[in-house]
């Protein structure tokens, strides 16, 4: 095994020693990393606040094949390269979670679990978290067979049975990833057709290890004290109990906007409502990537929006001088 290194954000613990910035970037996924590269190169005094290791959802996928310049790249390699590029340009990261943000005396006051910062501008790039189904057993068996991250947890299902729920790009990609390790894979989708890229969808549906359950809903995850033992599906042929060890859920995402709900307008799905792509209802606040209502949630769109947001702020700061 080659020794792979992700330096990530090293949590210095006590928060950043400085607490006044021109720009705070909330999040550390592709949108934030791109915003950080541009902010650093523009010489904007900034801070990137990310809860975990930078990379976001893109770091949770084994393979990205549609990011221009790379026929195939591991998600974490791509985001790690972005992180390194940002660090080399002078970007500053802290490993903290934004808990709230409000406007105070013409500035934005950002409170995290470890500190607080005031900033002239804020870019919300907190992306989205996996949606849950809210069915019995889902929460109980989380980490005991129920997973939202095939890349992290696939090794525990080597030679075992698993099902994937969902029909979008991420469901199909992660299902394909799982076919390399599991003995059998069920795919449960509420429609009769996958939304994913046709090429990937075909590859999955035709895979010898894969059984598809169309027009079906997962209604319960069953298990015992060892973890998941099966799922109950609502299928066109009635209720079915399927034996499985793993349940991987890719049933959509929910924008991570809780800390910002009083600062900017959100739509009914909790996404930040944007104007001119990266502007929000608050002139001091910009938003980029999966957290917005811009649609088409991809790495390439997230990085483009992150860049636009920093460029827009650079222009505003220039005009203020």
């Amino acid at each position, binding site marked *: 095994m080659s020794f792979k*290194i992700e*330096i*990530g954000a*090293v949590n210095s*613990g006590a928060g950043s020693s400085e607490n006044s910035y021109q720009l705070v970037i909330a999040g550390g996924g592709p949108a934030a990393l791109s915003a950080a590269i541009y902010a650093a190169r523009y010489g904007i005094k900034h801070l990137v606040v990310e809860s975990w290791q930078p990379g976001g959802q893109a770091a949770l996928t084994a393979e990205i094949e549609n990011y221009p310049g790379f026929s195939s790249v591991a998600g974490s390699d791509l985001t790690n390269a972005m992180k*390194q590029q940002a*660090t080399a340009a002078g970007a500053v990261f802290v490993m903290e979670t934004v808990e709230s943000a409000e406007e105070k005396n013409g500035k934005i006051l950002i409170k995290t679990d470890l500190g607080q910062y005031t900033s002239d501008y804020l870019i919300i790039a907190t992306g989205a978290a996996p949606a849950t189904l809210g069915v019995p057993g889902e929460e109980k068996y*989380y980490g005991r067979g129920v997973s939202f991250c095939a890349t992290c947890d696939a090794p525990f299902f080597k030679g075992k049975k698993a099902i994937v729920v969902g029909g979008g790009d991420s469901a199909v990609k992660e299902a394909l990833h799982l076919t390399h390790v599991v003995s059998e894979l069920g795919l449960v989708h509420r429609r009769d057709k996958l939304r994913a890229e046709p090429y990937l969808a075909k590859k999955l549906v035709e895979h010898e290890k894969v059984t598809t359950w169309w027009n079906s809903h997962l209604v319960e995850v069953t298990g015992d004290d060892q973890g998941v033992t099966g799922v109950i599906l609502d299928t066109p042929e009635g209720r079915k109990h399927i034996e499985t060890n793993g349940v991987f859920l890719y049933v959509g995402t929910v924008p991570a906007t809780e800390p910002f709900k009083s600062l900017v307008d959100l739509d009914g799905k909790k996404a930040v409502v944007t104007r001119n792509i990266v502007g929000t209802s608050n002139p001091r606040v910009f938003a980029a990537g999966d957290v917005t209502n811009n649609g088409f949630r991809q790495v390439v769109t997230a990085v483009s929006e992150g860049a636009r947001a920093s460029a827009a702020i650079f222009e505003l700061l220039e005009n203020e001088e």
Partner: protein
Amino acid sequence: MPLLSEEDRKAIRGHFDLMTKDVKVTLTRAPGKCDTETILNELNELSSRLTVEVVESTDKDQMLPSLSIGDSGRVLFKGIPSGYEFSSLLTGIIDTGRDEQTLSDETMAFLDNLQEDLHIRVFVTPSCPHCPQSVVLAHRLAGYSDRVVAEGIEANEFQELSMKYQVQGVPRTVINETFAVEGSQPEPYLIEGLKRHMGIEKDA
């Protein structure tokens, strides 16, 4: 070719410069060179505060490679600290080399009043970006209290142990065989959960 690129070195040096105390990392490994030793030697070059000691072990029952950060013998990592776990190693070194306390007052009070020893095992995989948070927290608890031993464990490398502790997702934190949490829990949640499990009242 070195494992660390010039850019990596620069970034790590910046972090290591924050250290105000000397830190020893002890690697126990099976006979023969290993990547973990190579990476530690490369790290060693980046700070005069860091020293690396290598111990060879032929004990088949020992979990190897094994890393102990600092002199306490309580801040441990079992397996190769690669992928995202490399940042757990770095943070562990930097934390140990600094005087600053990062735990909250509530957490410190809880640790000060511990009536029993805690053995924390955090199961991780190198491809899990959420995992270092849990390892770092466990290491900090052990760094603060001599009643706590914290091990980050690379689950793929120690499959029997992972099976014993029913690891089917990472991070999974198991404390004293009896208490387990899934996912990366922020400090206050972990401590609250642990207090409830130990029957300690919230405001006690």
